[in-house]
């Protein structure tokens, strides 16, 4: 076993462990953190496959942004796990049976595979950049699905705004545009007060 496969097994083991803990951890924040760990291990495996763009993007997007927001929500929710766990054992045999069937099918299908990829990966030259390659493919062969994917994101944005934006009454907020446009005359009124003439008048 060379160093690379050792690293692979470490990452893979870590990922499986983290994946299991995601569903078994009692505390939802722990679950979220284990999911982060799973993502990081997946990113490591991708790095081993020389897919550095996917690997770093996984960390950047999922770990750096998605999971942060997720954690944000999970922390603020008051989840009563015991309530959620009620009935777990009642449904367990059913779920386990289903899972067993699935696993059996998978083993049957994957075990009979004729064309297993036994040869090692073909190494790329040192100056090969899969970011460049990805960029080229995305903007040439895959430009159509790429644009559609962009539209899907646009829809998600429109939907999120349409569903959450409500004009609430009584909210105090600034309008910086108006603030900037304010003139001295709008705020300050100079009242001419006649100056008094001399001390003798006051005395009188």
């Amino acid at each position, binding site marked *: 076993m060379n160093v690379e496969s050792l690293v692979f097994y470490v990452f893979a083991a870590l990922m499986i462990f983290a994946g299991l803990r995601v569903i078994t951890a009692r505390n939802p924040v722990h679950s979220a953190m284990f999911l982060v760990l799973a993502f990081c291990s997946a990113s490591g495996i991708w790095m081993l496959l020389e897919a550095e763009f996917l690997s770093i993007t996984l960390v950047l997007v999922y770990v750096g942004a998605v999971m942060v927001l997720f954690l944000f929500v999970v922390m603020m929710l008051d989840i009563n796990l015991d309530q959620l766990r009620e009935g777990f054992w009642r449904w367990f045999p059913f779920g386990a049976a289903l899972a067993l069937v699935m696993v059996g099918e998978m083993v049957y*299908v994957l075990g*009979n595979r004729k064309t297993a990829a036994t040869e090692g990966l073909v190494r790329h030259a040192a100056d090969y950049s899969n970011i460049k390659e990805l960029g080229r493919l995305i903007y040439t062969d895959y430009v159509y699905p790429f644009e559609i994917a962009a539209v899907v994101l646009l829809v998600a944005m*429109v*939907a999120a705004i349409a569903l959450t934006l409500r004009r609430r009454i009584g909210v105090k907020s600034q309008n910086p545009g108006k603030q900037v446009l304010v003139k001295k005359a709008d705020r300050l009124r100079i009242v001419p007060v006649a100056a008094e003439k001399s001390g003798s008048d006051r005395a009188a």
Partner: protein
Amino acid sequence: MNLATNLYHAGAEVFLLTMVCVILIADLFVAGRGKMFTYMMVQLTLLGCSFITVATHTDGVAIVFSNMYVDDLMSDVLKLLAYLAVSMMLVYSRTYLLTRGLFSGEFMSLALFALLGMMVMISASHFLTLYLGLELLSLSLYAMVALQRDSAVATEAAMKYFILGALASGLLLYGMSMIYGATGSLEIYKISDAIEQGVYNKQLLVFGLVFVVSGLAFKLGAVPFHMWVPDVYHGAPTPMTLLIGSAPKLAAFAFVMRILVEALQPLAIQWSSMLAIMAILSIAIGNLSAIAQTNIKRMFAYSTIAHMGYLLLGVLSGTIEGYSSAMFYAVTYVLMTLGGFGMIMLMSREGFEADNLSDYKGLNQRSPWLAFMMLLLMFSMAGVPPTVGFYAKFSVLQAVVQTGHFALAIIAVLFSLVGAFFYLRVVKLMYFDTPESHEPIQYQADTSLLITFNGLGVLFLGILPGTLMSICAVSVQQSLLLH
């Protein structure tokens, strides 16, 4: 293929996307005052799309965008019908939405995004574009169902729709990935080539097929994946129900054609037996459950399940006649659904939903013309001659009988007799019962014109189905002849 050719064939999609973006921005500047402006822009966009689709029509099949986009007669026909369906949906629902404060720019732009999703699905020749189109459509629909924020029922419907829809997408994607693993390609023509030449992994492929068919059944709402349909149809605001129930079924038909018929034709024996079970169960459960409903939206939901069963019957027969009859069925179904839900919105007014069967009591005394239109629509759904529904069922059953599935045909006929009961019950309520309320039915001129067009269209197509039938036959033939 160069960029110009690519864009020429996808002209309608490009135009629609550009217009949605324009509408999204323009709507912000006419906010409050002129939703009618946005509405007119949307209708003009749909008109423009149909014009472009007709103008860029080319004979034969063009495959562009590196084998991801197919432009054939079937896609053009289905797209034109989808524009029509969305346009009719907007006309029917305008007043309904206005009185409920839902007539917003977001509603219209999301509807157009959904339409774009359908167009992508209809023209897809690659699993990637099929899936992305489906997601675009579904995401827009989830959001639209949830738009009525203050309604608990609508929110619940949206949640159910979203979660089950996401599950279905997952199944579909899983199946697609297995098919990719088994054949080494995501392009539908290459997949069928690979299978024909025997370069594939059999178990993995069949496994993938099962997942794909389950995902499709979920999206179509066929038994045993039908549980979401009644809740979503019932809970969503009626215009959204109309949108879910109408045009997307055209896209779903195209989806089934592209995946099962064009890509996985060599596996027809496997999938047709799966479809047979689902079709029969859908017809049986749909028709039987519809009898028990008192809410007309729920009744339509179960009737949709049954109709999807008939559609699948056409597909599973595996012949050109079968496919074209299924396409004919999809078109007919969309037309009838538009009319049916259109009628619900026409009868509704501010603070009142005409979604109970009892609301239709004595409609004949209140408005004989509307009652007659509803009668035509109900006859058509039940499959009573001379309406188009009869012809659609007839051609599907004919295709099934031709391929020797007599048992299937007999069961389908029996259950459609059962189904006739609840459609005719509506007719009985309208003509022989006394009305519960005598409030005048308020409707706009364009809506009543449209319902007339809709009802008479159902009759007219029933008497003269030849043109539509031959269009369906030619387009199906053309898209299958390619390989």
